[in-house]
């Protein structure tokens, strides 16, 4: 049966309650009659033989590029960079896409007799990956061949000798990337394009860059002018990265980009009800839903997190393209749109969404309040092309328990950001002006970023800037079922139930507002006209 496209449901009295994510758990909520629910397209079928497809892509590149085998020769200095643990979400079942691609590339390198090969996890300013996470992403064969010899590196943006300044773009943006990558004969990038924001020149220009470079596009002004950052033709974030990427190419760095797309079959069969339309739930789905909801209510938070973080997704490969960056990316975006695009007519007064337990920045970790805000107002709000799903001055209602809890190993700078910076002000521009510099250069955060598994000191700021467009656009943000003190600290309003939240929203948008609900999983991209 071919997968059905996404569509917009108009809620009537016969519509069953809608599933809302609520962190590590879910709720069924009744949306008022007349609300619209955007349902994503169903997962497309995967490629029958992914390994063959990958090998084919490597030898039949797109754009102005020679096949991989002819780019490799004995004595060449080759670097293979790959996307870090923030993709895909949730982490996929073995073998990971990156494992397949990297093994194919290394087979070619071994056949050509290349000795000098180094693997780099393109972290940008994210946290270093643990050995288990690297082993999961690359597979045991690659890990055991490279890690013991120190050839499996993680990008260190704060190593003064490890980055090299390639120049400035015509807008004065510094371009500074990993020295090893810049000085290689061939830089192969292995990317996973989960959403339209990923890939293209952003892979190298951000993934292997330093703070000095990244701050030119990770700032409030750029994010406010990215409408949205899922739409690269209307995104200042991408324009900046494209300028940087072209400068990198002109500086002589030879990049062989390999991009992959997934079919977003996000949850294993036990949780299939999450991806199904509520009126199509079978008896088994309904039983599983009720059993898990009841069990989860009685489970302590720590155990719930462990259960959910251990879920492995059945994501499958739907396309793979390799070759020159821009040509590859255009093909990839077409595949992403084919899988994810849903047409939505018009904006609403109120946008509702349930937030899951995972975002790119809390894999195997705790979702702290700042990440809740980023997931809702940063990612989900921006899953649009054209116009936002909610009108200017409208209200966004998010459902998440928003615990006042932080992982001190992964997110140390987030704790200080939440306790001290947000206590004073929630305005992104004020925060940027007053605090970003001191957090970015604090030697303790730099030390933890370089040696432990901590996000860079400036990273919570980026999470907040990700919300800048939404904060500018919306009239109010309400969080249903969240910890009151934490929600207040974020500058949002806490509500105990969806009905109360809608009542509160009416104070801002007027009586009987129009409502659009984002039904996820899986992810989608709304084309709003």
């Amino acid at each position: 049966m071919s997968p059905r496209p996404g569509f917009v449901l108009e809620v009537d009295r016969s519509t069953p309650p809608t599933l809302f994510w609520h962190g590590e758990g879910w709720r069924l909520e009744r949306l008022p009659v007349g609300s619209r629910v955007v349902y994503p397209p169903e997962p497309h079928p995967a490629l029958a033989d992914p390994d063959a497809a990958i090998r084919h892509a490597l030898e039949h590149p797109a754009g102005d590029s020679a096949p991989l085998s002819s780019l490799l020769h004995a004595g060449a200095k080759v670097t293979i960079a790959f996307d870090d643990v923030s993709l895909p979400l949730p982490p996929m079942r073995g073998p990971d896409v990156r494992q397949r691609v990297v093994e194919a590339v290394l087979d070619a390198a071994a056949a050509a007799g290349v000795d000098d090969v180094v693997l780099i996890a393109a972290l940008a300013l994210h946290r270093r990956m643990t050995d288990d996470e690297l082993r999961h992403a690359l597979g045991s064969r690659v890990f055991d061949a490279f890690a013991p010899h120190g050839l499996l590196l993680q990008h260190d943006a704060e190593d003064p000798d490890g980055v090299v300044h390639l120049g400035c773009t015509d807008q004065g943006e510094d371009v500074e990337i990993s020295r090893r990558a810049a000085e290689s004969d061939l830089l192969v990038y292995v990317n996973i394009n989960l959403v339209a924001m990923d890939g293209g020149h952003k892979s190298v220009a951000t993934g292997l860059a330093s703070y000095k470079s990244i701050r030119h596009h990770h700032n409030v002004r750029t994010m406010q002018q990215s409408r949205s950052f899922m739409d690269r033709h209307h995104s200042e974030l991408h324009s900046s990265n494209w300028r940087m990427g072209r400068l990198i190419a002109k500086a002589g760095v030879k990049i062989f980009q390999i991009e992959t797309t997934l079919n977003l079959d996000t949850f294993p069969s036990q949780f299939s009800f999450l991806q199904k339309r509520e009126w199509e739930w079978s008896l088994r789905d309904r039983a599983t839903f009720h059993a898990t909801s009841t069990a989860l209510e009685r489970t302590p938070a720590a155990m719930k997190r462990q259960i959910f973080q251990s879920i492995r997704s059945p994501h499958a490969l739907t396309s793979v393209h390799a070759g020159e960056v821009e040509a590859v990316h255009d093909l990839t975006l077409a595949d992403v749109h084919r899988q994810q695009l849903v047409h939505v007519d018009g904006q609403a007064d109120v946008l509702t969404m349930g937030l899951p337990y995972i975002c790119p920045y809390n894999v195997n970790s705790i979702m702290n309040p700042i990440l809740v805000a980023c997931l809702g107002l940063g990612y989900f709000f921006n899953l649009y092309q054209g116009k936002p799903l909610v009108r200017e001055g409208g209200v966004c209602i998010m459902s998440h328990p928003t615990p006042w809890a932080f992982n001190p190993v992964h997110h140390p700078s987030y704790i200080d950001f939440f306790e001290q910076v947000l206590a004073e002000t929630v305005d992104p521009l004020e925060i940027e002006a007053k605090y970003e510099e001191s957090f970015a250069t604090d030697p303790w955060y730099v030390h933890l970023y370089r040696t432990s598994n901590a996000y860079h000191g400036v990273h919570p700021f980026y999470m907040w800037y990700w919300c800048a467009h939404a904060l500018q656009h919306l009239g109010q943000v309400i969080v249903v079922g969240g910890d009151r003190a934490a929600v207040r600290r974020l500058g949002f309003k806490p509500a105990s139930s969806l009905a109360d939240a809608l009542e509160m929203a009416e104070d801002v948008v007027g009586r009987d507002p129009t409502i659009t609900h984002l039904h996820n999983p899986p992810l989608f991209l709304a084309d709003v006209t």
Partner: protein
Amino acid sequence: MREILVERSLPRFAAARAAAALAGAAGGVAVAPLRLADREERPLPGPDWQHVTPLLSGICGSDLSTVDGASSRYFEAIVSFPFVLGHEIVGVVDDGPLAGARVVVEPVLGCLARGIAPPCAACAAGRKGACERIGFGHLAPGLQTGYCADTGGGWSDGLVAHLSQLHRVPDELADDAAVMVEPTACAIHAAFVGAVQPGERVVVLGSGTLGLTTLAALRHHAHPGALVAVAKHPVQREMAGALGADQVVRPDELERAVRRLTTSLALARGRSTSRLTGGVDVVFDCVGSSSSLASSLAVVRPGGRVVLVGMPGTVHVDLAPLWQREVALLGAYAYGAEQTPDGVRSTFDLAFELVAAANLERLVSARYPLERYQEAVRHAGSAGRRGAVKVVFDIGRSSTPRWRGQPQSATTPTVTHESPTPTHESPTHEKLETNA
């Protein structure tokens, strides 16, 4: 004359200690050897002594320690049973050259009060708190009024005081402000002991009366580069901000806040911040418990100083950080004379000025009559949680005036909370008695 008397009874002190361990601060008040007694008026111990009738008398942390049986045994030689608690006293002098004047009593009993001539070097220099003849002279041992069998104390209808202990209260200063003078003097003295240099970074641990007055004293008499107050409860946090703290943090946020403030590194032990390599220059510990001392040592920089302002008992503290980081631990007790830029001035004079300048009378949150002493003590023990700072006994209003030498009959006074104006008397209040 009614007074709240503390008698020697080791079993009851032990029981009070146990009760406090279970019920929290001031939990021992029900079983402690404390009672509201009716006694004969005290004789004057010598010339230059006056009778004083208290108007207001404050409840201090050291009083609560005594009630809970938690005071160190160190004090045994310098208190004499039975004694009357209460050393923060504003009252009216009954007789002598200052008769009728409103005064604040400086409770420390130095050489002058004890009739020791010539006075020791410290008393001669005005530093009575450092008196070297403490416990001698013609008075029973007692380091302060409020711990001495011969003098009485503030929690009573009347006590005796030496002329050298009395400080006139200016007319424009209300009773509430006057009762804050003694605690403020302790805070000012602590601030001078800390010797904060301009630009130094300071943390004040504890936001009860002592912590808040220390904050005010530091703001007025020093120029710290950054002043961080640690406060748990909302009323305390508000007051700390109002009294001049640059940053107010919760106890569990302190280490992180200090790390950010000083951009120091931390030695991790499996958690992200557990031992700072840097820290602030001076820490004022206005709590005096094992955990507050441990916190102080955790956030002070190598070569810094920790000033112990709150009275400690026997605490268990790991002194390895103190040794390895060459930290100075200074005690700050009572008051005397301070070396200011304007010369040597008595701490009490400075306290009068600070109380007026910083409006410290707003720290008086609740008043109780002597009869409700158990509630009063309990309130003082949980002051932070209940949104109060200083709890005082309102003796002038709750007791009926009476002639000297006449026994009393019980009255039913009222309790007032945070009201600056007196409430109306209850209708059952008895009339003035004469010659009963």
